[in-house]
């Protein structure tokens, strides 16, 4: 016979205000990832280029005052371009299962039976991935800028390149937004994390190849819009004030990105539901 048989007890504590469910979801998602050593290793590798660039800035400002090492808009543009590789891998690693795993475990009805909206759920998942991407794009790029100021001992570089901070910020946001939304939409299409990862790889790699082939075959630069990466490149070139590598007008590229984000939002709106209605 038990000494003390505890029956059901009611909760007498407080409750937090509504609207922070997305934060709870994001925090749990981030915590789950950072417990994985392989993922931590990937994040560390993603910071290696930062170290290389930091050394370059140090050498350029303190040791060899050569134009080759000198910081410019191109330095930061190049850095963010190089980070695209890690954005790709981190997006696949941390993003492919975000919704697919929940679909596989029937967790959507569990989430949506709580006092949260579908938008809270999507925002939480989006924030999970965006946080990691933010930490390998905007954070190191801004740190590089801070190091440049530190090494040169003045704010002259920032004042002579006024577009740099907004350019870095908007470029990082575009990279993060496109990668996160695309991955999340693809993850919502499947119950398999691997399938979602393959779909993302297809979108990221093969759209560029197909666009290139079609451009060569038809002579129309517009085909390059098939690739989100190429479209993003047009915008980032413009943001950093560099001469564009493509003939695509900036406005068209912007429209392409908006259309892609809109499409992802529609997919998420249709796929993130507690009840699948097959009429």
């Amino acid at each position, binding site marked *: 016979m038990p000494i003390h048989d505890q029956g059901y007890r*009611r909760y007498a504590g407080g409750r937090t205000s*509504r609207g922070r469910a997305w934060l709870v979801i994001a925090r749990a998602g981030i915590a789950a990832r950072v417990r994985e050593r392989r993922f931590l290793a990937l994040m560390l590798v993603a910071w290696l280029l930062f170290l290389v660039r930091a050394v370059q800035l140090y050498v350029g400002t303190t040791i060899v005052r050569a134009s080759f090492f000198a910081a410019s808009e191109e330095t930061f543009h190049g850095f963010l371009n190089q980070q695209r590789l890690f954005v790709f891998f981190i997006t696949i690693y941390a993003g492919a299962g975000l919704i697919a795993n929940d679909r596989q475990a029937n967790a959507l009805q569990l989430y949506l039976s709580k006092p949260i909206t579908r938008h809270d759920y999507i925002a939480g998942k989006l924030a999970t991935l965006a946080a990691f991407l933010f930490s390998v794009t905007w954070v190191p790029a801004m740190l590089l800028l801070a190091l440049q100021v530190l090494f040169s001992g003045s704010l002259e570089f920032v004042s002579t390149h006024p577009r740099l901070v907004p350019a870095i910020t908007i470029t990082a946001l575009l990279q993060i937004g496109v990668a996160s939304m695309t991955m999340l939409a693809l993850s919502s299409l499947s119950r398999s994390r691997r399938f979602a990862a393959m779909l993302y790889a297809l979108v990221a790699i093969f759209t560029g190849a197909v666009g290139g082939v079609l451009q060569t075959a038809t002579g129309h630069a517009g085909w390059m819009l098939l690739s989100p990466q190429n479209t993003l490149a047009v915008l980032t070139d413009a943001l950093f004030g560099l001469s564009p590598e493509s003939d695509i007008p900036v406005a068209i590229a912007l429209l392409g990105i908006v259309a892609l984000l809109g499409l992802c939002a529609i997919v998420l709106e249709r796929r993130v539901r507690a009840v699948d209605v097959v009429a």
Partner: protein
Amino acid sequence: MNSDRSPVVLENVSVHYGALQALRNISVAFPAGAVGLLGPNGAGKSTLIKALLGLLRPDAGVLRVLGRDVSADPLSVRARVGYMPESDTHIPGMNAVSFVAYCGELCGLPHTDAMQRAHEVLFYVGLGEARYRNVETYSTGMKQRIKLAQALVHDPDLLLLDEPTNGMDPKGRDEMLALIRDVADPHRERTSGRAPISVILSSHVLPDVEFACEYVVVLHKGAVATDGPIAALKGDSTRVFEVRVKGDEARFVEALREIGIESHDESGEVMRVFVPVDRPVQLLFKVAAQQGVQVRHFRPSVPSLEDVFARALGD
């Protein structure tokens, strides 16, 4: 019944899935306490539960849960409702404590409180020893228990349980039903002074409902076939007999029906015959003789929920 005090009230509620009408103009009030929601597969039980949670929007009518209009404010309703889904469900990659605490936080509990409460409810549902195991490694019975734990963690005022004993062994099933009864127990003293939790138990296992609930709502083809206290529905206005006849059974049943005596075939051999208390039992034998059938088995029985269910469905 006073619908003002009912935790769940439906007024002319209809829900469609495309061309399929899942709920047809339902008006019913669920009283406080444990209420069984009965019905065959496809009757609309799960649809009704999802509509009560605001996951499905009714095409017509009003659903009120704990005094709130579900369509107008589904989040407030869900904050006070615990839902245990029928299907196997969990958050991937979490152990039981993290999972239940996470569900508590999603419902607005502060992190520390959610963790403390998770431990408490896991012990309550009998998973205290297994609370650090990954949920994916749990047996079917344990998964049912943890689904109950996640529904209880935020201390709801209404519990919606969809087939809570599915896949459980007899011992586990008894324990689960005992938990449900305990949660809905109106007599136990509450330290907080709050009203006891109301429970809606959706099931097609009639003995489960009979054990845990005092009131039932029977759905059939999207409509309320009958509802009321189980004791009243079983009633003392009829006596029940198990009867087996040899001969034209269909003619015998039809003849009984013509004189106002209902019957239903339970096992294909023995039928249950409901004789109103104001009619003599000898009438059965008289009808059998008139129809030329032999009564081979005749035994008094007691009214059961299965009788209520079968009569409500018109079988």
